[in-house]
């Protein structure tokens, strides 16, 4: 985590710590102002048009669940269809399945080709008069594929269908402009953007957020309460019941400041150099296959090695000081498509170097030697 993010949270905890939106004392006013300042920074980071379009959540999973309950339960009913894709992380599948189980809606799934790209023609064919919602990941966490979401959003909007974009894997690696994308919802987590865990945001267009019902009831989200009737607070507070993780929210604001200072376009360009170099190195090796070879990819390298299970690769690479993810990446439909139980995934970020790519390559070669 960048020192500036740590320092910002320490400053909050040592000199500004109090609950927000409550007391009239100095600390509470300061904490409230800093929390709202952080919301403003997130708004700038994604180019939202208003502060209130940014809702703090505990992360991407929480944000998708919020939409599934707040929007889905109110506006998606029996026989209605929700379009998802094969590339979704479980957190953009399960909340919709739970909704469908509850109210009889149907899930339709966009298939992929063998490079790991969505079949856009099939996506278009899935639309009919029952289509009420689209949930799509901006970037596949398992393969790195960047989906053509702008085109997908445009197509859905022409049919009056709102779109949620899971940006958990995209926001850390490229400049996000929600107005340019014209998405209805966009969500990502703090810990993937050099921020703390337990915090994320849901971006939503004001008009939609206002029509949605609250997800969690409690303090902060109300205007008035009697035992006969409760009226809800305005957006975004309507969706932020209870005491939020204030230090984490403030740290998240510092994290996006840090990334903006580095420059998201520079990050994207540098990471492309890393993935191009790593891909080239891997292509020269025997007995290794890259899973996910889409034309548009972020710096994610998912691979399988002949005769070696990913968990053995992960344990042995760990011994070389290399941290990779092994397993199904919470994206089992993707694994099923490629008929592999699991892959090893190296995920590069702007703080990685070409030398570290070399270390990964020689680490894999060592593993292959052990299992010869």
């Amino acid at each position: 985590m960048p020192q500036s993010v740590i320092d910002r949270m320490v400053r909050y905890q040592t000199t500004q710590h109090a609950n927000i939106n409550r007391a009239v004392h100095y600390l509470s006013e300061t904490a409230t102002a800093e929390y709202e300042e952080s919301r403003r920074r997130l708004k700038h980071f994604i180019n939202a048009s208003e502060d209130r379009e940014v809702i703090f959540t505990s992360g991407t999973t929480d944000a998708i669940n919020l939409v599934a309950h707040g929007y889905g339960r109110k506006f998606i009913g029996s026989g209605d269809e929700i379009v998802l894709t094969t590339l979704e992380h479980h957190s953009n599948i399960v909340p919709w399945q739970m909704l469908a189980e509850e109210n009889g809606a149907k899930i339709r799934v966009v298939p992929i080709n063998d490079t790991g790209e969505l079949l856009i023609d099939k996506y278009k064919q899935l639309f009919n008069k029952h289509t009420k919602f689209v949930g799509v990941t901006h970037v596949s966490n398992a393969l790195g594929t960047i989906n053509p979401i702008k085109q997908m959003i445009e197509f859905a909007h022409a049919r009056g269908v709102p779109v949620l974009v899971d940006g958990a894997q995209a926001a850390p690696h490229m400049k996000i402009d929600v107005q340019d994308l014209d998405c209805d919802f966009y969500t990502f987590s703090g810990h993937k953007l050099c921020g703390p865990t337990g915090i994320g945001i849901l971006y939503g267009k004001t008009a939609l957020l206002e029509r949605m019902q609250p997800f969690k009831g409690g303090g902060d989200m109300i205007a008035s309460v009697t035992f006969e009737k409760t009226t809800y607070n305005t957006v975004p507070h309507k969706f932020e019941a209870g005491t939020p993780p204030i230090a984490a929210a403030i740290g998240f604001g510092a994290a996006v400041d840090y990334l903006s200072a580095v420059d998201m376009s520079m990050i994207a360009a540098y990471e492309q150099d890393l993935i191009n170099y790593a891909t080239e190195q891997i292509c020269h090796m025997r007995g290794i296959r890259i899973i996910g070879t889409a034309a548009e990819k972020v710096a994610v390298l998912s691979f399988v090695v002949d005769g070696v299970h990913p968990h053995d690769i992960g344990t042995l690479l760990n011994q070389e000081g290399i941290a990779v993810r092994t397993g199904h990446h919470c994206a089992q439909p993707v694994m099923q498509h490629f008929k592999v139980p699991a892959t090893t995934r190296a995920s590069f970020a702007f703080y990685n170097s070409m030398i570290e790519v070399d270390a990964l390559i020689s680490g894999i070669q060592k593993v292959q030697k052990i299992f010869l």
Partner: protein
Amino acid sequence: MNTKSLYQEVILDHNRNPRNYGSLDNANCSAEGHNPLCGDHLNIALNLSRGYISDIVFQGESCAICKASASMMTANVKGKTQADAETLIQEFREMAIGKLEPDSNHHLGRLTVFSGIRDLPTRVKCAILPWHTLHAALNSVATISTEADDDPMHVSIGNA
């Protein structure tokens, strides 16, 4: 952490050339073991006659640790009584989770090559899945999962 000593020749050899690998036509006990977190999957079939394991085989898809553990397990319990096998199951599990010292009094013999797994909590399940499945086969449980709450060998390890 002694990962090096975990991936030693004996384990790599059993992974490369697993013993008792295949199917058994006349098996009277069998069970299927599954670790949904990593996709490890194996079947164990055995013949239990007059309290003795007269024959035992396994088959499946798994990592090297799981396959070697299954291979060495079948070689060890073949010809033993059900009670002796249950003792080994218990001791192996305790060794894997660090409750049994490899140099204490036990019946594990060369199976102590797996003792290093205690330092790799995320891999413990890989090593104990075959033992877990053998326990199920001996107790007429058809399928087991490392993630089932009521599983006697459930070891809580997080995963997404």
